């Protein structure tokens, strides 16, 4: 499972970085979305991977920490998802404004001289 997750994060990050470096605004925003997925998965994995263990502690009875997974990274991921979503949405709005002003979708607002 660790290998699969590591490969997934690596592929997402690699694709994301490559897309962010592309000249079209649409590619950049997709790149940032992929990077956001990769970062969120990474944060999640920092709580150590556990299968079928609850993060929320049952109030009744003795508590055995071995039965539970770390809830903190899950809370962090929730926050990071919300913030990442908001900033990406804002970036999308700016992207559209830039497209409207410049008339093209180059990140610099004008085509590179070839």
């Amino acid at each position, binding site marked *: 499972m660790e290998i699969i997750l590591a490969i997934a994060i690596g592929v997402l990050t690699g694709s994301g970085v490559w897309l962010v470096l592309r000249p079209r605004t649409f590619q950049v925003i997709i790149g940032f979305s992929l990077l956001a997925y990769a970062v969120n998965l990474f944060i999640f994995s920092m709580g150590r991977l556990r299968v079928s263990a609850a993060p929320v502690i049952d109030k009744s009875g003795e508590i055995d920490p071995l039965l539970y997974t770390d809830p903190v990274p899950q809370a962090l991921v929730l926050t990071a998802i919300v*913030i990442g979503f908001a*900033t*990406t949405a*804002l970036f999308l709005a*700016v*992207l559209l*404004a*830039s497209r409207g002003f410049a008339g093209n979708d180059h990140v610099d607002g004008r085509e590179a001289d070839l």
Partner: protein
Amino acid sequence: MNGWLQHLPMLPIATPLMAGALLVLLKESRRKTRLALSFASVLFQIFVAYQLLLMTTGHMPDLWPQNIAVYLVGDWPAPFGIVLVADRLAAVMLLLCSILGLAALIYSTARWERAGVHFLPLFQLLLMGLNGAFLTGDLFNLFVFFEVLLGASYGLMLHGTGEMRVTAGLHYIATNLAASFLLLIGIALIYGVTGTLNMADLAIRAGQLTGADRRLFEAAAAILGIAFLTKAAAWPLNFWLPNAYGHACAPVAAVFSIMTKVGIYALLRLGSLLLPTGAPAAFGGEWMFPLGVATLIFGAIGILATQQAERLIGYCVIMSSGTLLAALGMPGVALTGPALFYLLTSVLALGAFYMLIEMIERTRSFGADVLAVSLEAFDLDDPESPDRSDDVVGVAIPAAMAFLGMAFFCCALLVAGLPPLPGFVAKLSLLSAALQTSATDTPSLAAWTLVAAVLLSGLAGIIALSRTGIRLFWTAEDIVVPRLRVSEAGSVSLLLLSCIALAIWAGPVMDFLEETALLLDRPQSYIDAVMSHQPVRALGGMP
């Protein structure tokens, strides 16, 4: 009384948040109410910051005997819940931020707050993010406040719109998004290694790491450091800055001048806490000093090469970041106090400078000079621009040109660090501390490098600024005497007068900052204050 005072560290965050939320609800047509609310919020923030400053010098021993205000936001004890911590450094930064905020707000009432929607709420939220970043004692919470201030800054950056501004904003947002992802990766990695996000707890646990864990922690700190250095505009992570700041409208750019210092604040805070256990390379001298010198040189070259006045100040911002990084990267504590003094003067001076340049640009008749490209960039001067309407322009101050010239002269002196203004005091004390810092009789190579870089960049600053001053004021043909509003001239004067006050009371201020630096050098009191603070209610008890 104590019941109210114990919430003091929360107020710099809660006040602008409430004010911002109310401002969103109030209609734009109720301008007087909105402005009154904004000013009340900022003035109250100044008051609270001043109270916190008094607290750190021992005026509230009943509540906080260690002179460090700790506030448990969810009333959970320290390593588990989020804490806000106001020590001396945080209190100084809060006061600086609110004074700069007041000046920018006064300036914006002249016309900028009406150049688009939601200026006032975004402005409050920006202040909230800044205050929160200074106060928080939790790493992830720091990220959240960074995002709050960046989110507000994205909106403010685009305020007034226009093609150039949107393109610059696009680059600014993209850079900061990438830096935020790095910040998140660093924070997650630190949590994975140490199992804590509380900075004080982190300072304890980082020392207990060994072997592979320690190396992973170093890597995490390096990633975190890169994110902070991007915010602090260290070379080679600062190419976004001159363009973004140069295209933002004047009051916004003025507040932005403190935003690069937030990155430096974070580096200083974490570096101070991690110091006793061996600071990771990113927060220590090995990285910060060479990067700082490189940033200074880059800023000096940039300031000589640039022609547009707004971009010129962008390079001044980079130079001030470089000076701070190089000074803080020097070994020992002797330079930290003067560096903090330099931080105060440079933030105030650069804030005033951004607002001043916008007023000076009005003296140039439209399309009269070679800078036609920059006119488009700064679409203020376009008579057809919706931002500009003649009825906004108010009472003419006599001798407006004299005021502009004097203010420009003051700003140039402050930035270049010439007497009698405090820029000189800051640089002189910085350099003399650098030369005295080494244990042996002869100052180290690093000290001489710092002296050379600071002096040469100061020279470059003088050359570039006097050239700009000559171009702006002494080309007689096309100067139009501008009509300044009292609020515009007043806000610049406010910032310059606070600089002059810093020069007059340089002794006490410097003593206070030296003390701050000593406390940063011995973070044990900070750690103890955070870890020993007890929640109001006993754990497990009924509410």
